[in-house]
């Protein structure tokens, strides 16, 4: 099944669910399915139980941090210049707000096929960062979702045990976010910030 076929099947089976096929410009060209977060859990159960797909294995869950982006496109426009219609090029800028994303790589052991790539996106990357946990569907997602919660700060609602995995409890940052700045530490003689570095720079 192509991603477009899967998309139409999900949308037909789950009323109100919107699925977007996200193209992949890289060489394998594996398009992924971006499912809206309100229906993500239902869509996951659908993919798992669909007799033609039987996606019974979640091999990997990855986090992605998208900053606010500005895309400029060149568009050809017909314009009236001094009473004469001319073709002109215009650059249009559109803003894509930043968001966090969890990417699920799904395979079917039963059917020996895959992957189907599922993306679930948060509303923004500051305060509305909840998406439903897919651990009830694929148990193997449990620790990976914990790792994403730890390093990216996505809150998986419905996760059985959502705690930090790699960093300690009490740590407040999310180190894999693109705007993460590590705390200042004295790095020794090479570091001009530290006491030793200043001493070395002074001779």
């Amino acid at each position, binding site marked *: 099944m192509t991603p477009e076929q899967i998309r139409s099947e999900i949308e037909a089976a789950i009323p109100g669910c919107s699925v977007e096929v996200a193209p992949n410009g890289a060489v394998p060209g594996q398009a992924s399915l971006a499912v809206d977060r309100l229906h993500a859990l239902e869509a996951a159960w659908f993919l798992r139980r669909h007799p033609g797909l039987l996606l019974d294995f979640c091999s990997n869950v990855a986090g992605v941090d998208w900053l606010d982006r500005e895309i400029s496109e060149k568009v050809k426009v017909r314009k009236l210049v001094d009473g004469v219609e001319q073709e002109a090029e215009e650059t249009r800028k559109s803003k894509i707000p930043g968001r966090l994303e969890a990417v699920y790589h799904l395979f079917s052991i039963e059917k020996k096929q895959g992957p189907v790539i599922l993306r679930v996106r948060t509303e923004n990357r500051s305060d509305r960062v909840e998406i439903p946990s897919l651990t009830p569907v694929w148990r193997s997602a449990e620790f990976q979702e914990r790792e994403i919660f730890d390093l990216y700060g996505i809150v998986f609602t419905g996760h059985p045990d959502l705690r930090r995995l790699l*960093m300690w409890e*009490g740590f407040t*940052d999310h*180190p894999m976010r693109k705007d993460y700045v590590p705390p200042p530490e*004295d790095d020794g*003689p090479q570091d001009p910030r530290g006491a030793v570095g200043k*001493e070395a720079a002074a001779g």
Partner: protein
Amino acid sequence: MEQDLKAELQKHGVFTTTFEELYNWGRKNSVWPLTFGLACCAIEMIATTMARYDLARFGAEVFRASPRQADLIIVSGTVTKKMAPQVVRLYNQMPEPKYVIAMGACAISGGPFRDGYNVLKGIDRYIPVDVHIPGCPPRPEALIDAFMALQRKIAGQQLTGGARARHLKPETPSEYPVPEHGEHGLEPTLNAEVWNPLRVIQ
């Protein structure tokens, strides 16, 4: 006693020694390391103890599973910020005299992972290190070389006088403050009493 006289006496079958020499000779030949590995360097450390490299030749075959029975902690691998307090605590739990080998680039400085968000930039920020071994990871020969360097250090330690060994000075601590896990990193980021980085020579 002068070395020449000692050698001369030995030729005539008279063996002389000092209590210090005898004591250090015994200590240096039974250094028991702690069973403690952190990363890939630990694999090299294990290989060093096995038959091919055989660290037992130097009296260090008994890896103790408790810090209470160990004389040496080999910090073998990347020390994460999450692990660092436990490493310091293990050191604190060891009885004196105790020694530290920082094995590999990571234990010395953080190595290739130095800029990682969870990597300590060298264990010598919190505990005093006796021997540093460069390498990534160091080969078993390098660990044996470091071990022999430690043996020479132990053999040369004085038991009395102003230059006596660290553990015999009442003012030097045998326990060091354990860093705390803060909101953004370890607090404090280093112990200035211990950390002695190399100065830049211009």
